[in-house]
């Protein structure tokens, strides 16, 4: 007989059961990992490579001392009194926002609070440097200066590849001069040589035969690596009192003339030269490549872009070191030391700290992590942003001279990152559960766009706007991240798991504002929670969270 054997239906049944079993198993696994009651006791793991002796070496401490002395001298001369020391948690918040674009999580705060006071900042930095969020965040900020935020010419440009590459190099703490040279002198295909996207982003989509655009590249190099707005004299000599001439810019552009597109990607063609018609002239003329200052540092040998890259990053070309210091400073203070970020005088008087940090950067082979550690160790980075005294409030003069920590608006990605982190008791990093990572990925993009991403001008100071307030008050992100959701949201977990009202309020404050409530705040919110049970408690906690996320303090670095 050819009939189907009776065993088959049984096997089919088993097949039918397996997906269900696997699915239920996975659900239990996910729910188990998510729902394991995580409360306030578990601190985040310690960094792997923290060496307190190294971070407190006499040499390191001496440089910090010089920095402090130079700034304190200016305060004395201006007769300005510094604000008091900020609490360690506030400093940690600044570092997390500046270097990862988000807040410290509750478990990270617990870990921080276990550290001895004298090493807490450097310990925290070591942990951040080991976190991929740090390099990803810095890579994106640098990329904005190198290539902007637009997608660029699709066929020859892959922005995300370049950002990934930058992140990997920053994670390795690759010397910044080496990294910069690779960008300026990049060759090859944009997919396999991610650094080459610095060059290909300038290709005109409508005229790919023209190859990389010398003018755009010269503009990028002068601003991103030299802190000079040389492109301002692209069309004519400086008539605003500066000494730059139109030829300075185009002679710099001429270094990029050999770069062309080929089957093997970007490569140099020595025969290609740069021609330009100067203002007031009738004809195009051949432009000889020349650097705009310190010509003696330009190597005599090598391909044009290779020579330019070496000149830009030459240890005696301080413009490069100052620009690097200014960018890292801007990340950490949310405000550059010299404003605007890409317009630093080549000579003259610099704000206190600039020359010491620039010299140290050169002396320590462009070590970005050391630069960050130095800035974080200064007295000014650890000052409060308020005098905490209504009789003697912080003055503009105080803030201008960094005698109080400058209060600056958080950028959209920092606000989004903060909302998402504040609504979780766990750290949302590369180790976090996939559910949180996916949630973060999807929720952040839309929020940033609507909050108002200002692209490359992200360090320009701007005030709050009505659409931002509407988004925070009524938008989807805040609603979803503070709503009743025992799996995902800290507000619900706190409402159900906190042992008492006082610790509920304190935990919410730590998650959202990285501080404990004042006595008045504690009493106010404890009163609201008093006696409220069951689902109503979730609502009160949701309201508390909403209020913390909509307070001025949440959206500002301070």
């Amino acid at each position, binding site marked *: 007989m050819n009939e189907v054997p009776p065993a088959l239906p049984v096997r089919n049944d088993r097949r039918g059961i397996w997906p269900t079993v696997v699915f239920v198993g996975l659900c239990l696994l996910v729910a188990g990992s998510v729902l394991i009651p995580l409360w306030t006791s578990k601190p985040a793991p310690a960094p792997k490579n923290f060496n307190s002796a190294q971070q407190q070496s006499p040499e390191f401490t001496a440089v910090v001392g010089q920095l402090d002395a130079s700034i304190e001298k200016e305060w004395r001369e201006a007769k300005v009194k510094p604000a008091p020391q900020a609490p360690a948690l506030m400093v940690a918040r600044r570092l997390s926002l500046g270097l990862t674009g988000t807040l410290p999580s509750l478990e990270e705060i617990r870990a921080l609070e276990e550290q001895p006071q004298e090493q807490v900042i450097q310990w925290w930095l070591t942990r951040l440097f080991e976190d991929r969020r740090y390099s990803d965040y810095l890579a994106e900020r640098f990329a904005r200066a190198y290539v902007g935020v637009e997608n660029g010419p699709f066929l020859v440009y892959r922005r995300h590849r370049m950002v990934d590459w930058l992140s990997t190099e920053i994670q390795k703490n690759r010397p910044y001069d080496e990294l910069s040279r690779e960008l300026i002198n990049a060759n090859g295909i944009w997919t396999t040589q991610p650094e080459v996207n610095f060059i290909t982003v300038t290709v005109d989509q409508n005229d790919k035969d023209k190859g990389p655009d010398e003018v755009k590249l010269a503009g990028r190099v002068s601003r991103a690596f030299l802190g000079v707005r040389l492109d301002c004299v692209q069309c004519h000599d400086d008539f605003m009192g500066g000494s730059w001439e139109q030829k300075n810019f185009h002679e710099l552009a001429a270094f990029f003339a050999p770069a062309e597109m080929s089957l093997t990607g970007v490569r140099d063609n020595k025969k290609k030269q740069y021609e330009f018609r100067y203002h007031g002239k009738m004809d195009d003329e051949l432009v000889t490549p020349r650097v705009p200052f310190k010509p003696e540092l330009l190597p005599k040998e090598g391909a044009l872009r290779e020579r330019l890259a070496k000149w830009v990053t030459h240890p005696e070309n301080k413009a490069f070191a100052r620009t690097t210091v200014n960018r890292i400073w801007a990340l950490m203070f949310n405000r550059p030391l010299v404003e605007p970020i890409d317009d630093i005088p080549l000579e003259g008087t610099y704000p206190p700290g600039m020359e010491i940090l620039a010299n140290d950067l050169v002396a320590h082979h462009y070590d970005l992590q050391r630069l960050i550690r130095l800035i974080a160790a200064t007295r000014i980075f650890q000052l409060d942003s308020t005098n905490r005294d209504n009789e003697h*409030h912080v003055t503009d003069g105080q803030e201008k001279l960094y005698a109080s920590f400058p209060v600056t608006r958080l950028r959209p990605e920092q606000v989004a990152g903060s909302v998402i982190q504040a609504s979780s008791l766990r750290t949302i990093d590369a180790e976090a559960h996939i559910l949180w990572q996916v949630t973060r990925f999807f929720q952040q993009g839309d929020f940033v766009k609507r909050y108002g991403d200002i692209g490359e001008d992200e360090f320009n100071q701007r005030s709050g*706007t009505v659409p931002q307030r*509407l988004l925070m008050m009524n938008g989807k992100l805040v609603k979803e991240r503070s709503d009743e959701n025992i799996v995902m949201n800290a507000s619900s977990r706190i409402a159900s798991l906190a042992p008492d009202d006082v610790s509920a309020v304190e935990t919410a404050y730590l998650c959202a504002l990285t501080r404990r409530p004042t006595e008045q705040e504690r009493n106010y919110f404890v009163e609201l929670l008093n006696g409220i049970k069951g689902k109503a408690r979730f609502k009160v906690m949701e309201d508390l969270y909403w*209020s913390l996320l909509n*307070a001025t303090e949440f959206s500002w670095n301070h």
Partner: protein
Amino acid sequence: MISPEMNQSCGTADHFSRRTLLKAAGMAGLTWLTPLGQLLALDAEKKKGSPAQSVIVLWLQGGPSQLETFDPHPNSPIAYGTKAIKTSLKDAQLAAGLEQTADILLNMSLVRSVVSKEGDHERATFNMKTGYRPNPTILYPSIGAIISHELPNQKIEIPTHISILPGQWPARGGYFGAAYDAFKTGDPAQPLPDLSLRVSDKRQEQRMKSVSVVDQAFMQGRQPDFDAKKTLHQQSMQNAIGMMTSDQVKAFDVSQVPLAERLAYGDTSFGRGCLAAVRLVERGVRCVEVTLNGWDTHTNNHESQGALVKTLDPALAALIADLKRRDLLDRTIVLCGGEFGRTPKLNPLEGRDHWPHGFTVAMTGGGIQTGRVIGATDPKGEKKEPENPVHVEDLHATILHALGINHEKEIITPIGRPIALSDGKVIRELLA
């Protein structure tokens, strides 16, 4: 147990107790962006007798082809088959497809000789919207931001500078600050995002009270005018609540307009945007930009431009007619154009490329002369200089002048440099 107020439905502006929420937000009186004293002083500065009070910009992003819209040359080889039609304005033709606009062209003027030095979309858009070429040292404000700054409206509770269907580069506040950026919104068929409270009035009131407790702690040791001078956080929150609870916000909702009136604009998001623009200026909004994107026709120019013209024609014609019917045309300047025009010659892909050497901006209303055609482009498409060229900055100076704003007024910018609102010249022949 859930308390009764927690179960209350919420979601529409009608539910809000305006007085309660405004009180919770600490508002004594509403002023949009500008303190009252400054408002009065600025108002006094506006020249008496200037009829124009608002501007509607129909922004054709991508660079519309002048030859397929307002400046056809039907008998020339550069037409490549584009036909022209007669209009209500003697001696002025429009490209076929703009039949409804042709009927009301008598109520408009055409500047067919606009020239710009920018051939890149982003730079040219910046140039057209601000009247200045991009300059790395300073971010110039868009014309809407200038008007909002110079003509503050004490009675307005919604943003005075609005961009409907914003493209890639919506109008910015420039050196006036982010508060003057255009308020961006999408197709008016959809409700405005984030405008509805997600909880009951009572809960919202409690939330606002809690915010003030947290803010009070944060303000300790800071300057008393910290919010006004620095963050504008509380002020923005107050304005946001003012907007959420204002009847004026209904101007965005075109579903309240009878169907026939709505359909006159065309059943498109752009058409609905134009209708919303009329309703917004009626409420006192200073500048509304409505974007119709897609004019960058490097391939299949005629087909793509034709499709866009079908959207533009009913919307533009209905907008002018509607403004006139509502007695708003006298006080509303309407401007229709893009960042540049397109090349007289077709490229091998039958597209037209960028052409900033003579393109058209259509204008009307608010003291702008009607029935004028200014300038002319070369019918053969060979000359790069049109007759009677009009520079982008001159259009700006003219619009500001018509609004009673001294275009030469210098603003001390954040970098300490005084900059004129416009460095163009007023085009006298465009003024009524």
